[in-house]
């Protein structure tokens, strides 16, 4: 694929890519932006090359995921070196505070975000890819770099856990959220 063609495709996928980067960076907007820029840099320098073996979207999401993980590792090491762990967390809270101000409009959205943050990374990824990015389980498995069976397991467990934690949150507010699960919902 030509660079200009690739650029056009990347532009088309920019918004979902940013959403996925946000999810990989635990809703840290600045870090997500940095990760996405690093991904574009990798593509420009030829470090990440699309060979047409899979869907472009799946490939791009996998690159974003890997880059986010390595960036998080780097920032963790940087924090260890400078011994500025607490400062970083406060900084991160300030970043998350920006969308949190928007979320204050809806209590439900806040609860949902909290419940999402409580999920293990794999389960959160599986749910995000299926519900947010509208990917199939096979595509989600490709992005996560796991088998489809494993992706399905993460998806099911994540869904169950998210429902439980949301129900717990809702029951605190006096509203019953518990309903019976439809096991044949996922194809």
């Amino acid at each position: 694929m030509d660079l200009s063609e690739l650029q056009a495709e990347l532009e088309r996928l920019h918004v979902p890519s940013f959403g996925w980067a946000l999810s990989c960076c635990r809703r840290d907007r600045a870090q997500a932006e940095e990760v996405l820029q690093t991904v574009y840099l990798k593509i420009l320098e030829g470090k990440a090359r699309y060979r047409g073996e899979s869907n472009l979207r799946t490939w791009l999401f996998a690159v974003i995921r890997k880059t986010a993980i390595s960036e998080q590792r780097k920032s963790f090491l940087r924090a260890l070196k400078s011994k500025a762990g607490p400062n970083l967390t406060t900084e991160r809270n300030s970043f998350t505070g920006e969308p949190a101000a928007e979320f204050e409009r809806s209590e439900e959205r806040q609860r949902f975000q909290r419940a999402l943050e409580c999920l293990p990374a794999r389960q959160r990824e599986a749910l995000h890819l299926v519900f947010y990015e509208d990917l199939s389980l096979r595509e989600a498995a490709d992005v996560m770099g796991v088998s489809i069976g494993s992706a399905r397991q993460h998806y099911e467990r994540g869904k169950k856990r998210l429902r439980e934690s949301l129900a717990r949150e809702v029951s605190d507010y006096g509203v019953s959220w518990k309903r019976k699960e439809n096991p044949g919902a996922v194809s």
Partner: protein
Amino acid sequence: MELAGNEKKIQALFRELKLEDESVVPGFVRLWNRAQATSRKPRRAFKTSFALATGLLVITLCSLAYWSRNWQRSQPQNSTVAVRSTTPGSTPARPPATPEPKQLVPNKAPDRIRANRPRRLTNPKLETRNSEPETTHRQAQLTFRNATLREAVAISSWQSPTATLMQSPADDVLTKLPQLDRSVTEFKSFLPNTPK
């Protein structure tokens, strides 16, 4: 993918989240241009950490080489010093039963050197030309052999400093066994207080 019940609720929540995120998405062109600008920047060829590591390695290697050279040079000198220092120190109470190492060396060493010495050149001019380096070479050889000999003598004649404490006037009686097949007269002469 068909969703029902709570899943629809979850999807609705995700959709809301997506809408929220779409409002804060940075421009693609801005990120792309920044990435392009970063990729165009010339990479710094000189890395400080790499240079430091290389420098340290070079310094270590140089000091090792210098130390090993000095160690090789000082090796024969040290052995001579060791012989000199150990010979009087280790046998302080020893009677001078063995000859001094210094006395032994000049008697034997020159003979050996003479035997190994190459034939002299007959041309007097050449002789005078080569005499100085030859003599220095010989002297060096001599000193080295002397040192080796001294060391050997010192090692062979070494005795424990407490060896004299083990000696007594009745050493002969203790070390020899009386022989049963000797005559009575010999026994009598051996025993001091018996009438002959």
